[in-house]
């Protein structure tokens, strides 16, 4: 690779992120075409994918060397000290180049080779079939049909080819409406609720300005209302704060005027835009990265970042959707400005509340594929896959995952998948290892020929499904058909396992979840074993009944031997794979850094009392 000048640097220190005494591990740093790798003296490896790197910073030179601070999109933060400045500079420059590619073709996905042949690759891409999914929902039907209006991406470039619209909406109406909607994103079906015959539809903001109107658009909305035989009025949910929506009117955009549309009920839900979300997360990460953070700074930082407020806003909007459908059987049309960020969040989360299928491993993939990938959430721009406008980067999808996590906390038995699944998906949103999240819309993906040149993430996750299953999942419980979460503020908590994923010192040292998951697995194995042994016993019994006489004779001659007994004991002990690794407490090994930090706190606050030669020097071991 032309960007790599130094491939290996020895005697590099990896600083402990939270240690106030600059505790560190020494090891060797390797730079490969795809990863930055650090191997410490205990042979522990830390792999960092170049695409995960959000920022590289060279800090002012210190006596021990040149500090290099790397922050990753998966919230890993590493702080190296490279002994020689020149090495540091080389690595710094290489990483700058490698972490920001100019062309899609240079991304990891185009070189990643999991040793599959073309037909396996294609099969992988076919795993999620959205036509199949719409069929599952119950469309097409007498009220909804597949429209071929966008077959050639002629009406809307950022929509998929296949769109479902009310049967009574003719093509001219669709075309007319699309001209009245920002980026041509006219109202289409996102989710159809079969029992209630109500729909969640999505679009972008209307180009209404202060007074413009569009008869076709009004017709299309009316068609959506009419497609619902139960309830004639529909909700139009503008997910933006009212002020933002009003400001858009000056630019010739805006929101629906209730007077122009029959039977709509208009509603703002006040989710902030991508820029607010980006800086909110930035603030949150800044606070949490502080060394020696105190409790009140943590909570005031959490508050002033506004992060949990935003999460709650998204959740409340989704609940609004679910209630409209469940309680009133009313259809809902959702939009924001362009209809690919907040709209995707709210539609997908709303569907997840309504439909337990989306809470399964496969269903969740389908949901992401439908409301995010196919409807043109700009994954590449939002996660900054290519070197581009940093103002387009925003954690919109991360927020969606966090909302789902909050639901898994409130309903621990309602989801087939676990937290690791969410974290793994988040990892690959940024990794550029698979083709799914490259590009910003389906059209772009087709042009990139992703299905021929890259692999799909989903089959790999499915192969690894065991890791992502929730052992407490109760698929049968009727109670979990529709989720009704409680959004009282105290139900929202900081998601440590996401934002401190790699800061193991902050995590519990034993995981109930892993143990139960393992036990669940083991139970399945044991059930097999039991069947197996029982059949063997049966065989023996059958054999024995054949010659009972002999057996009785022999029994009297050969009493049970003591040797046998001991061997039995031995068998019982090694019966099952020992799960010691799960039970091991990480904090108990001497390399652990936790205990020393209590001491640092006192040595810092009371320097007058603890003398240097005795207190500090000895206490920090």
């Amino acid at each position, binding site marked *: 690779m032309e960007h790599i000048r130094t491939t290996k640097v020895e005697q590099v220190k990896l600083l402990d992120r939270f240690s106030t005494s600059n505790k560190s591990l020494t090891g060797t740093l390797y730079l490969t075409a795809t990863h930055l790798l650090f191997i410490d003296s205990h042979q522990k490896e830390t792999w960092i994918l170049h695409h995960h790197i959000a920022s590289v910073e060279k800090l002012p030179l210190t006596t021990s060397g040149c500090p290099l601070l790397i922050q990753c999109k998966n919230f890993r933060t590493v702080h190296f000290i490279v002994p020689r400045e020149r090495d540091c500079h080389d690595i710094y420059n290489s990483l700058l180049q490698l972490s920001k590619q100019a062309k899609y073709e240079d991304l990891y996905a185009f070189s990643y080779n999991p040793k599959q042949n073309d037909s396996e690759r294609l099969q992988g891409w076919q795993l999620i079939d959205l036509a199949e999914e719409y069929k599952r929902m119950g469309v097409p039907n007498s009220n909804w049909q597949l429209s071929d209006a966008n077959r050639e991406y002629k009406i809307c470039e950022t929509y998929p080819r296949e769109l479902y619209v009310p049967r009574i909406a003719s093509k001219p109406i669709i075309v007319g409406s699309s001209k009245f909607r920002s980026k041509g994103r006219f109202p289409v079906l996102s989710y159809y609720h079969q029992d209630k015959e109500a729909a969640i539809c999505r679009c972008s903001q209307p180009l209404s300005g202060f007074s413009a109107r569009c008869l076709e658009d009004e017709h299309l909305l009316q068609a959506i209302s009419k497609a619902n035989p139960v309830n004639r009025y529909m909700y139009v949910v503008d997910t933006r704060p009212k002020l933002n929506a009003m400001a858009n009117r000056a630019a010739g955009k805006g929101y629906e005027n209730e007077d122009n549309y029959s039977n709509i009920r208009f509603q703002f839900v006040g989710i902030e835009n991508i820029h607010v979300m980006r800086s909110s997360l930035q603030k949150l990460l800044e606070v949490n990265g502080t060394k020696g953070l105190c409790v009140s700074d943590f909570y005031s930082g959490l508050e002033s970042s506004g992060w949990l407020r935003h999460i709650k806003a998204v959740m409340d909007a989704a609940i609004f959707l679910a209630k409209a459908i469940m309680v009133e059987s009313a259809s809902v049309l959702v939009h924001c400005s362009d209809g690919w960020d907040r709209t995707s969040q709210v539609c997908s989360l709303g569907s997840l509340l309504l439909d337990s299928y989306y809470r399964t491993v496969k269903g969740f993939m389908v949901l992401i594929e439908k409301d995010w990938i196919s409807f043109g959430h700009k994954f590449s721009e939002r996660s900054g896959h290519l070197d581009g406008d940093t103002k387009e980067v925003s954690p919109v999808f991360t927020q969606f995952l966090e909302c789902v996590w909050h639901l898994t906390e409130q309903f*621990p038995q309602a989801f087939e998948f676990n937290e690791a699944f969410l974290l793994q998906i988040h990892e690959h949103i940024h990794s550029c290892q698979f083709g799914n999240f490259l590009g910003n819309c389906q059209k772009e993906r087709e042009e990139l020929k992703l299905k021929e040149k890259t692999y799909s993430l989903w089959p790999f996750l499915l192969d690894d499904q065991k890791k992502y299953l929730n052992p*407490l999942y109760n698929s049968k419980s009727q109670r979990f058909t529709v989720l009704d979460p409680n959004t009282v503020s*105290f139900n929202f908590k900081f998601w440590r396992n996401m934002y401190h994923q790699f*800061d193991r010192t902050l995590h519990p040292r034993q995981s109930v979840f892993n143990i139960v998951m393992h036990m669940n697995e083991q139970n399945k194995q044991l059930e097999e074993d039991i069947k197996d042994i029982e059949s063997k016993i049966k065989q023996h019994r059958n054999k024995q009944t054949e*010659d009972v006489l002999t057996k009785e004779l022999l029994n009297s001659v050969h009493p049970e031997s003591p040797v*046998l007994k001991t061997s039995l004991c031995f068998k019982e002990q090694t019966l099952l794979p020992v799960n010691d690794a799960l039970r091991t407490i990480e904090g108990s090994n001497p390399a652990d850094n936790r205990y020393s930090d209590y001491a640092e706190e006192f040595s810092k606050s009371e320097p007058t009392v603890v003398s240097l030669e005795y207190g500090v020097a000895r206490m920090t071991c």
Partner: protein
Amino acid sequence: MEFAELIKTPRVDSVVLHRPFYPAVEGTLCLTGHHLILSSRQDSTEELWLLHSNIDAIDKRFVGSLGTIIIKCKDFRIIQLDIPGMEECLNIASSIEALSTLDSITLMYPFFYRPMFEVIEDGWHSFLPEQEFELYSSATSEWRLSYINKEFAVCPSYPPIVIVPKSIDDEALRKVASFRHGGRFPVLSYYYKKNGMVIMRSGQPLTGTNGRRCKEDEKLINATLRAGKRGYIIDTRSLNVAQQARAKGGGFEQEAHYPQWRRIHKSIERYHVLQESLIKLVEACNDQTHNMDRWLSKLEASNWLTHVKEILTTACLAAQCIDREGASILIHGTEGTDSTLQVTSLAQIILDPRSRTIRGFEALVEREWLQAGHPFQQRCAQSAYCSSKQKWEAPVFLLFLDCVWQILRQFPCSFEFNERFLIVLFEHACASQFGTFLGNNEGERCKLKLQQKTMSLWSWVNRPSELSQFTNPLFEANNLVIWPSVAPQSLQLWEGIFLRWNRSSKYQDEAYEEMVNIIEYNKELQAKVNVLRRQLAELETEDRPRQSP
């Protein structure tokens, strides 16, 4: 008897009870000397039995002749009673007020309670100091039991029997007692078998402004040091506070007089600061209408988790001195009955696997809280709702339990007990049918003849049927020192206590049940496999000789 005078209206019909997460119940309200009872007289509905001593505060209001009494309990629950008739309502309210604030301990329910269960093991004798000492005496001969406080004369807040260095005689102890706050001379709290280091605790030294010293005191604590070794004194007050204490006759150990000891000051809050913190926290948790910013700012302003962090950090420091530094420590604050005990007991949780078992934890509470003279009666007299604030009320024990819960969350397989056990201890410290938490120290308990007149909490808790509820199904004993993380990101609000009455935990409870099922099923399958394997092996041996006779 006296109670009858306090109960103006013993019974009202058509009272409606509102409680969190239950439908309203209409029924008959009865007041007895110790309980408020509401019964719908239908088998299907659960009755409400509320101990008067659990009531922290009541509010009343009227709409026409319909009165409403809002009862706020020490366990933070709030219930509402709608009582028809103004007079009845006023009578009930004033009776509750009188009965929930009885002055005399001997009128408390434990003196009247007759257990409905058979006592298998008398809890009053479950954790005798002599037995506890036996656990150490096999490992060390440097310590002895002293009966100097038999009559509670030397130190009114100490138990009759304490553990002191063998080389220090009772005469010297008497002198040391006069040099320590409340007569609380340094005694052994914990002996760490791994390296022979110890935790001692005491009251502050009474150095005063002129730097008084006491040779016997110095000798006593030096007697615990190995030759050439140094120890640490952990003062749970900031240096500033400790210095100010000198003006009131208290103080701290001067370097000059204790050259073998290094002093470390930590700042653990006490009294009204903690009480205020609790009041703010409970208020924040009870208001469901708070938006996110307000909730987070209220949570922060309560400072509760700051206190948790401070206490845990100090306990970790103490444990670190012992385990990592191989140094003995002496811990004290002012009186040595609050923050001192938080630190000594939590350090043992961290260091000692025994204190993470149910029996061991009970022994710890008995030793480090009850016998060590934590004034439960004073500290738990009122809780978060009461307006008449007394300066000696403070949620010291609750903070300790919260800290244990935080460690339990971080090491969910290392404790034999579960969260439920901690909650039950909190409930019984507030209000109980058992005598265990009555009185402020052993001396008072002795005078009250609690052992003869009341039942011990441990007699009930340690029954197999009760124990099963408190047992952690994931427990697997480990002998390791468990170092918790004290980072704010690792600490959490204890929902089981503070949000208990504010949100339904139905789904969490069901998930817990499911987890227990998986674990039980696992045990069952393992047992079955073992039996089958044995059968198979027997069959195989029966077959084998047949093949080659």
